[in-house]
């Protein structure tokens, strides 16, 4: 899966543009979260590391842009907050073109297995369609659903369920090296 895309030559400039975009989103977007909250939403606990990753790195994408968006119970529509994150994802993805982008849809455990697979696919598809509407090439985007099989958080309460109802944008390749 480690492949390099063709559009990497502009990666450095683009990284700077994204930081600018994210910051402007914070002040102008009203409902949008600041960068630290956004990193928290990625679910890996990487707070406040904006300055530590190269802006074209996958780590930066995961922690500063945020690779995940979250959904209400049994819904696949994108919240305002999710759209803000996906706008930033789209800009980064266009500028740091990878050969493969995989969007994973997930559901919380409160549902039957097959239905949750289908629901996760709806969520991944909603993200895919949004990214395409923002200019990300369709041929780079694949979707998959894990239903309730891969929870991020393991408690059986809404605080965990809300983190598990997610779609995660995964980019292949590793530009760190």
């Amino acid at each position, binding site marked *: 899966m480690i492949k390099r895309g063709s559009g990497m030559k502009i990666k450095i400039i683009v990284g700077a543009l994204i930081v600018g975009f994210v910051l402007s989103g914070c002040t102008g977007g009203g409902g949008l979260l600041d960068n630290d909250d956004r990193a928290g939403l990625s679910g890996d606990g990487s707070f406040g590391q904006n300055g530590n990753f190269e802006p074209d790195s996958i780590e930066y994408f995961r922690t500063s842009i945020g690779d995940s968006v979250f959904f209400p119970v049994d819904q*696949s529509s994108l919240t305002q907050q999710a759209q803000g994150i996906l706008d930033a994802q789209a800009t980064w993805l266009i500028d740091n073109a990878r050969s493969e982008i*995989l969007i994973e849809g997930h559901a919380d*455990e*409160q*549902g*039957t*297995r*097959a*239905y949750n*697979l*289908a*629901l996760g*696919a*709806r969520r*991944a*598809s*909603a993200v*895919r*369609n949004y990214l395409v509407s923002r200019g990300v090439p369709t041929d780079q985007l*694949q*979707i*998959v*659903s*894990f239903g309730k*099989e*891969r*929870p*991020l*958080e*393991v*408690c*059986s309460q809404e605080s965990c369920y809300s983190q598990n109802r997610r779609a995660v944008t995964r980019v292949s390749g590793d530009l760190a090296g």
Partner: protein
Amino acid sequence: MQKWMVLILVVLGLVSPLKAYAAPLKLTLTEGVIQPIPYAAPVFVAENRAAEDWSKKITALVVQDLNSSGLFREVSKAKYISQITSFASPVQYSDWKAINVQALVTGAVKISSKDQLVVKFRSYDVFAGQELGDGLQFVGTKDRWRRIAHKVADSLYSRITGESGYFDSQIVYVAEKGPKNARQKALSIMDADGENSRPLTDGKSLVLAPRFSPNGKQILYTSYETGFPRIYLLNLANNRRRVLENQRGTMSFAPRFSPDGGAVVYSVTKAGNTDIYRLVLGSGQSQRLTTAPSIETAPSFSPDGRQIVFESDRSGTQQLYIMPVAGGDPRRISFGKGRYGTPVWSPRGDMIAFTKQSKGRFHIGVMRFDGSEERLLTASFLDEGPTWAPNGRVIMFTRETRGAKGASGLYSIDVSGRNLKPLRTPHGASDPSWSPLGN
């Protein structure tokens, strides 16, 4: 599957001729309240010294099977007035009647000159004072001893209830290991009592929801080994398998065989929309059966192969629908409060088992195929995915416990709602599928 052919069955004939019209010992399973039938199963007579341990083990397993059904109650051996010391001797009915035994099972075990187990048994209707059915003999290698005992128990179950048993059957399921957020899942197969479990896949790829073929020789399941959910068809005899469809940009899952084993219904997700398809295994031709923008999944054939029950959220929530096998207008059958999913048609054709979510709880329930007579059999934090015993009298399902350390296990319950019990498995377990009765 080769081992399935080693058992040889011989009809021994009656000890005394059957009286023409008396057969009062009959447990009718459709009656509302069932009093377990008191029975006695004296340790089968060991006909040679090498058979002594085997006779004890086999008798104990027959008793365990019968008791597990909840339909039979063993009368304590301490109460026996007479002992069975010879398989051929006439039974003293009065001795058994006096301790209120209604059904008596006698048996004999020997190790043959070919080092095989030879197990004979007879059953008696004590109050009618006559033999119940023919004496039977099973011959098999020693490592088949559990199957022989299950077959004896199935015969007894069948003679008393008038329906086929389910003890000599298997369960294919998903064995689960590891923490909730990194769970390993391996396809596994075991006897219906939880013994002889063995893995069929290595656990490296996520696998879901295996289903037995109607002849018990093949298994459909979903695996992520390509990174995407795909349906595989596994041949148990040679462990060969093939992917049914591998179309880029799609997912396929939730497969089930048609009753004749020649076709598969399943779900395909394209561009985020999940619909139901039917694939003919011989030709490889697939046909789309639903076209709504809603989620259509979990299809299951009626036993006559003419209809398909499935779940759809086209009304806004998950509900159950029935459509003709070629597709066409579905008819909604679930109307209660809550969400209904995972419908499975009973092998008897009369009922549909399902998972219901209501007020934060999960239930396994049954309803008639017109949606009437809904009954919820269980309630817990998370019950799902019913599968029917081959005789349509028992349902097995997955129960998952709450919380960070939550784990999955298998439970069974009679369709009457009685006799809920866990099945002991070596690891966590989910997604059971019951085989047809062994042969």
